[in-house]
């Protein structure tokens, strides 16, 4: 029996998808990273909103953490690297700090994703609070060490609080997206 005659019994073998379908899948898979990149660019734009600069790390860390836990294929390590580079190039701090922090958060989320993805959303929020606190503390320590003086901690505390506050909202938005337009299976 050839696979062509009874494809339903061999689900691993499918007809080769057409070009449009592949493009559709690619765009759906790349949507989380593209949205995060857009958010980084928009938050670096001169809108003059209060707390704009402090909101950027929170949104970046939330997005990277969420997608690394629930769909690592959409937030792979090279993409995280590119996002971190973008943030570092748009900012004015010592280069590479945000890049390292965001890669470490990505690594933590990847290593614990089997536990995290089954946990309740409130538990996940608490985990994110701890991870982002450690990330912010690391960022503060690195910036202080690289600029050879103690940077005031209050801005980093504000940044962490904003990230903690924005994570549940982004969870709602991301899970809606993940079920609809960012879902490659619906292509």
């Amino acid at each position, binding site marked *: 029996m050839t696979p062509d005659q009874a494809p339903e019994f061999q689900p691993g073998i499918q007809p080769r998808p057409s070009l449009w379908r592949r493009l559709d899948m690619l765009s759906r898979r790349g949507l989380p990273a593209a949205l995060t990149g857009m958010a980084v*660019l928009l938050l*670096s*734009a*001169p*809108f*003059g909103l209060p707390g704009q600069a402090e909101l950027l790390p929170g949104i970046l860390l939330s997005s990277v953490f969420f997608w690394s836990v629930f769909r690592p294929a959409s937030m*792979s*390590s*090279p993409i*995280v*690297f590119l996002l*971190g*580079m973008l943030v*570092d*190039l*748009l900012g*004015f701090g*010592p*280069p*590479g*700090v945000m*890049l*390292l922090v965001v*890669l*470490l958060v*990505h*690594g933590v989320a*990847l290593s614990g994703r089997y536990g995290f993805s089954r946990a309740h959303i409130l538990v996940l929020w608490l985990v994110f609070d701890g991870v982002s606190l450690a990330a912010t503390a690391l960022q503060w320590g*690195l910036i202080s060490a*690289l600029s050879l003086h103690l940077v005031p901690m209050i801005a980093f505390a504000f940044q962490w609080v904003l990230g903690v506050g924005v994570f549940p909202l982004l969870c709602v938005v991301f899970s809606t997206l993940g079920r609809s337009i960012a879902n490659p299976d619906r292509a």
Partner: protein
Amino acid sequence: MIPLSITLRQALERLVLPILIVAALGIILLGQADRSLTERVRMGLADILAPAYGLVVWPQEQARDLLGRMRDMGRIEIENQRLRAENANLRHWYDVAAALADENAALKANLHWMPDPSPSFVTGRVVRDTSGLYARSVLVAANVDAGIHKDEIVLDGSGLVGRVTEIGSRSVRVLLLTDASSRIPVRLEVSHGAAIMAGDNSGTPRLIYYSQDNPPVEGERVVTNGEIDTMPAGLPVGQIHYVRPGQPVVIPFASLGHLDIVRVFDYGRSAVVPPDAPGRIPVRRPADSFSLPFSSPLGHG
């Protein structure tokens, strides 16, 4: 794609994140070692993004402009009322000033007031600040043939600037009233005292020889007092300011720091000589009285 075994591919995928973390550490070190490289890359990215950010900023500016204009329109009513009240007030003061001018003219006519001769002046542009550490003077390019003489008075739009000290063929040098060698007799308008304004190369000349029981008042106007030839009374000079108690200085009205166009006035006062009074006995100088006792015994002996 290169065909790889599944185990090798999984091992490679597991290696990606550590490699990227090491790369991030390398970027941190590189950023510390070569700061100019970071700056160049950041500036390159900013140059690419600049038009997009311009697109973001433009509507914001338009909206802010529109809001400001609407706020102004809301205030037009109040602004109109304020201007109307101010206009009525000013009209009142105009009437007062016109009445006072008429009264002044009538009083002067009754007193047989001899009007001051209207001075002739030459306008010139300050071409160079020749001030050094120890002098304050400027060079004025003016038509010297139009009649500029030494010791004439130089004024700008708001007050006395200084005096002409040297005359060239196309320019004159003006000693500013802040120069250390400048001494100008002045009158104080509120306390009616007289004093000498002495420059000390700073921006604010000192006031010396003022009457101790009639000290200058803070903020009063200082005008020339006309005690020297070539300088009439009443030219605006400046304002009294106490740097510390007992040390009054004059803040000049003229912007001596950045002079542009000045006028050189010829008041022609050097021609005015005091008339001889009939029956006036000339005071003998001390030298004359000393010579007499010695000469007369010699002459008689």
